[in-house]
C-alpha cells in the first residue's frame, strides 16, 4: 500500500519523529494516517507538511538555546555589544515578520483551499444517504428510503459519495471514522452532515469522539466499504423482515423474546417486538460484534451477554433478566438465526 511512500516522506521529514508513527501503522483501521478519501488525504497532507514546518522551527529555536549554552558564563561584552537595535530587530523579524508570512500561508492553504473539501456535501450532490443516531452507548444506522435499520455498522458502496446525517437521541456524541473523513458532533436537536467516501474496499473502524458518559469507551462502529453489487444485496437483505425461526428451540426463543421484556426495548421486524430503546435486532446475526464493538458476535458471547449484560459493559441500559439455562440457549438459537 501507500505505506512505503509514506515511509520515504516520513524519513525525509524527520526520521526520529516519524519512525514510531510508522510502527503504529501496522494496524490502520482507525487512523488519520491511512486515508481512503480525498478529504482525509488532504488532512493527512496538511499534517505532514505542518510537521515538517514545525520541525524546522523547533530545531532552529532549540539550536539558538544551544548557542546560549555554548556561550554560558562567558565574560566580556555580549555578541551584539550594547547594540540593542540588532537584538530588537531579531525579535521583530523572527517574532513578527516571519510568523505573519507563515501564518497567512497556513491560513490560506488550510482554511481556504482544504476546508471546502472536508465540508458537508452540497445538497442534492449525493445519491445515497445514511442516517446515524447516537445513543448512550451505541449507534443506530438507517437508510432513508428503505426499511433497513441496523446498529454499530455502516455499509457503503466503494467510490460513491454518501451523505451522512448525524443526530442524537440523548447526549452529545461525535461520529468519527478517521480513515474516511474528519469527525462531526451529533447533537440533540440538530442534524449535522458530513461526506462519507472511500475509494478502497475494506473495513474501517470508527468511534464516538465526544465524551458521552460511563461507556464512552465502548461506542465503536465499523464502516464496511463494499463493491456496489455486494452493497446492494446487503441493503436489500437488511430491508427485509426477520427470518422465521428454524427448529423448535429457535421458535421457543422467539416466543420468549416477544413475551419477555426484551420486546419492550428491541425491534425485530416481522414479529410483535417493536421497542425503540435498544438496537434493532432484525438482522442481528449478520453483525460482526455486539454492544458497539465490545464483544464478538457468536453464540457463546451472545448467551453470556443476555445472561449478564452489565459484565462486559457496566452501566449500559440493558438490565440482567433471570433466564434459565435452557431459555438462554433458546434465545441465542433464535437470535443466531436472524441473518
Amino acid at each position, binding site marked *: 500500500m501507500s505505506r512505503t511512500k509514506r515511509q520515504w516522506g516520513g524519513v525525509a521529514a524527520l526520521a526520529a519523529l516519524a519512525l*514510531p508513527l510508522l*510502527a503504529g501503522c*501496522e*494496524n490502520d*483501521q482507525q*487512523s*488519520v*494516517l491511512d486515508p481512503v478519501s480525498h478529504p*482525509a488525504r488532504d*488532512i493527512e497532507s496538511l*499534517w505532514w507538511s*505542518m510537521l515538517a514546518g514545525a520541525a524546522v522551527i*523547533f530545531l532552529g*529555536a*532549540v539550536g539558538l*538555546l544551544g548557542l*546560549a549554552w555554548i*556561550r*554560558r*558564563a562567558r*565574560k*566580556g561584552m*555580549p555578541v551584539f555589544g550594547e547594540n540593542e537595535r540588532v*537584538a*530588537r530587530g531579531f*525579535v521583530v523579524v*523572527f*517574532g*513578527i515578520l516571519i510568523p*505573519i508570512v507563515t*501564518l497567512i500561508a497556513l*491560513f490560506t492553504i*488550510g*482554511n481556504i483551499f*482544504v*476546508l471546502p*473539501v*472536508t*465540508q458537508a456535501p452540497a445538497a442534492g450532490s449525493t445519491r445515497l444517504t445514511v442516517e446515524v443516531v447516537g445513543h448512550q452507548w451505541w449507534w443506530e444506522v438507517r437508510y432513508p428510503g428503505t426499511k433497513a435499520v441496523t446498529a454499530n455498522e455502516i455499509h457503503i458502496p466503494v467510490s460513491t459519495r454518501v451523505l451522512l446525517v448525524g443526530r442524537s437521541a440523548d*447526549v*452529545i456524541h*461525535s461520529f468519527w471514522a478517521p480513515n474516511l473523513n*474528519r*469527525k*462531526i*458532533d451529533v*447533537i*440533540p*436537536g440538530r442534524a*449535522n452532515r458530513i461526506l462519507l467516501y472511500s475509494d478502497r474496499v475494506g473495513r474501517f*473502524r470508527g*468511534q464516538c*469522539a*465526544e*465524551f458521552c*458518559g460511563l461507556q*464512552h*469507551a465502548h461506542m465503536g462502529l465499523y464502516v464496511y466499504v463494499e463493491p456496489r453489487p455486494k452493497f446492494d444485496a446487503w441493503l436489500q437483505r437488511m430491508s427485509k423482515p426477520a427470518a422465521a425461526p428454524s427448529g423448535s428451540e429457535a421458535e421457543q426463543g422467539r416466543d420468549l423474546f416477544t413475551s419477555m421484556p426484551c420486546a419492550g426495548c428491541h425491534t425485530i421486524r416481522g414479529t410483535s417486538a417493536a421497542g425503540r430503546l435498544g438496537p434493532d435486532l432484525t438482522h442481528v446475526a449478520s453483525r460482526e460484534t455486539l454492544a458497539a464493538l465490545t464483544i464478538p458476535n457468536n453464540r457463546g458471547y451472545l448467551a453470556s451477554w443476555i445472561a449478564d449484560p452489565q459484565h462486559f459493559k*457496566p*452501566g449500559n441500559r440493558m438490565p440482567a433478566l433471570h433466564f434459565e439455562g435452557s431459555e438462554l440457549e433458546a434465545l441465542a438459537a433464535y437470535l443466531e438465526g436472524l441473518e
Partner: protein
Amino acid sequence: MAIEAGTAARARIDRLERVWLEHPGVLGWLTTTDHKRIGILYFFTSLFFFAAGGVEALLIRSQLLVPNETLVSPGAFNQLFTMHGLTMIFLFVIPISTGAFGNYLLPLMIGARDMAFPRMNAFSFWAFLCSGIFIYTGLFMGNAPDAGWFNYVPLAGKQFSPGVNIDFYGLGLIFNSVSTTVAAINFIVTIFKLRAPGMSINRMPLFCFAFLAVSFALLFAMPPLNTALVFLELDRLAGFDFFNIGSGGAPLLWQHLFWLFGHPEVYIIILPAFGIATAIIPTFTRRRMVAFPLVALAEILVAFIGFGVWVHHMFAVGLATITMVYFAAASLIIVIPSAIQLFAWITTMVTGTPRFKTPLLWIVGFITFFIVGGLSGISFAVIPFDQQLTDTYFVVAHFHFVIFGAAVFPILGGMYYWFPKVTGRMYHEGVGQLSFWLTFFGTALTFFPMHILGLLGMPRREYTYPDGLGWQVYNVIETAGSYVLAAGLLLVAANLGVSLFRGRFAGNDPWGGDTLEWSTTSPPPPYNYPVIPVVTSPYPMWDLADREEDARRLERGELTLEGGHETLGSSVLDAEPDEVLEMPAESPWPILLALMLAGAFALVLTTHYGSALVFLGLAAVVLGAWHWKEPETA
C-alpha cells in the same frame, strides 16, 4: 550592598517591627492580612491540591497502561479525569501562580508594604480553601463531578446526571470564582495604585505586566463561566430549561459560555508563567530583557485577543463556515504576541552571558516545551485538521505541553529562584539540576507519544481501549514516563523541604537579581521595606546609587511611614506619590465570611434553601462587622 544601619535607622526599624507585628501561632495564621503569609498559605494549599491531582493522574495512567485494564471502574475513571482537570486548573495552577507567587512577590516588586486590600486578600485565600474542600468532599463521598471539566450539557443535566456529582462542580466553581474575582480586583488596584515613587508604568517589571494582564483577563473571563454555572444549577435544582432542548433551551449555549471563559483561562494559566520567565531570564543572563516594550505589549495583547478565539474548541459541532474562519484567523493572530515573547527570551539568552543554574534550566525546559505545545496549538487553527484531531490524544498532548510544560515549569523554576528570598536559605544546586532533568524527560516521555496516539485514532476520555489498534506501546511509554515525572517532582519537594532546615544561609541577594525584592532581607520583614524605595528604571537592583540613596533616606526618615500601619499610594501611570494609605491590621472577619459562604453553598447543595439563607444573612452580618471602623492601631 552592605550599608550598616545607623542608630536613627535602627530606631525606625524597631518601631516598624512593633507596628506590623501580628499574633503569634495558629491564631496569627488564621487572621493574618500579611500578603506574604497569605502567599505561603496559598502555596502550601495549592501544592496539596497539586499532589491530589497528581495522584489522580497516576491512577489514570495506570488504568490506561494496557488494553481492557480494570484497575478502576468506568465511573471512578470519569470522576478521576474530571477531578484531575478541575484540580490542576482551579485548585493548583491559578492559585499557586496568582495566589502564591503573585501575592508574595507583587507587593515586594513594586515596593509596597502589602496588597491594596489586605483583608480581601485574606478572604480570597479562605474562600479558595473552602471551595477546594467543598469540591473534594464530593470525591470523598464517591460522588465527584464526572462529566469532564468542560461539563457539557445535556450529559451534565439532571436527566443524564441525576446525582449530586455535578452540583459539587457547579456550586464549587461558583464559590471558587468568588475567590478568583476578588483576587483579580485586588491585583489590579495594587498594581495601579501602590507602586513605589518613580516606578512609572513603563518602568514596571514585566512580571507585574503579566499579572496585570492576568487580572484583567480573570475579571472578564469569570462572568461568562458564572453565567453558565448559574444557568446549570437553575436547570438542575429549580427545573429551569436553559439547556433543555425539549423546552427550547440550547445545549450549545453552554459550550459558547464555557469556552468564552475557557480559552481566556488558558492564557490566564500561561501568563504568570511568562511573567516568571521574564523575571528569571535577566537575572541569570546578566542582561536587560531584549525588546522590553514589545514584550509588555505582547503580554497585554495575549490576554486581550484570548477572548476572541473560543470557537476553535467547537469546530466539530457544525457551525457556519464563516464563523469558523473568523475564529481560526483570530487563533492564528494570537500566535504573534506569543512569538514575540518567545524570541525575546531566546535573544536575551543568546546575547547575554547565561549561567545555567537550576532556575534558568526550568526556563529552558519551559521554552522548549512551549515551542512544542505552541506549534501543535497552531494546527488547531487549521479547521480541517482541528476537525480531524479534536477530542483525541493529540489535543491531550498539546495542552499538557502548554499547561504542564510551559505553565508549571516556570512555577517550579520560580520555586527554586525565590526559595532563598522566602526562606533565607539556599537549596542544593546538584539535586536541583537532577530534579529538573528527571522532570524534563518524564514530561517528554509522558506527553509526546500522545501526539502519535491521537494520529492513530485514540479518542480522549475513554477509560479503556481495545487491543489490536497499535495503541498499547505508546500507552506503556506514557505511563512509565508519568512515574519518572512524579519522581522528578518528589525530588523537587525533597530538595526544597530539606533545604528549608539544612540549606546554607542565602543573604539578601544571592543571584544579583534585578527587581526590588532582592533589596530587602530574606525572608522579608512584615513591612517589606523599612523605607519605600524610589525607582528610576525597570531594573532597580542594578541601579546601585538608588539603593544607597534608599539607605540614606532611612537614616533621614524620608518615606519611612513609621507612624502607623501604612503604605504609599501613587498615581496610576507615573507613580507619583499621592497619599499615605492606612492599611488594616489582622482581622477575623475574612475567614468568618468564607466559612459562612461555605455553609451557604453546602446547604444549597443539600437543597436546604432556608438554612442557606440564614448563612447568607450571617455572611451579611460579618460583612457589616468588617466595614465597622476599626480602632486606630498603635
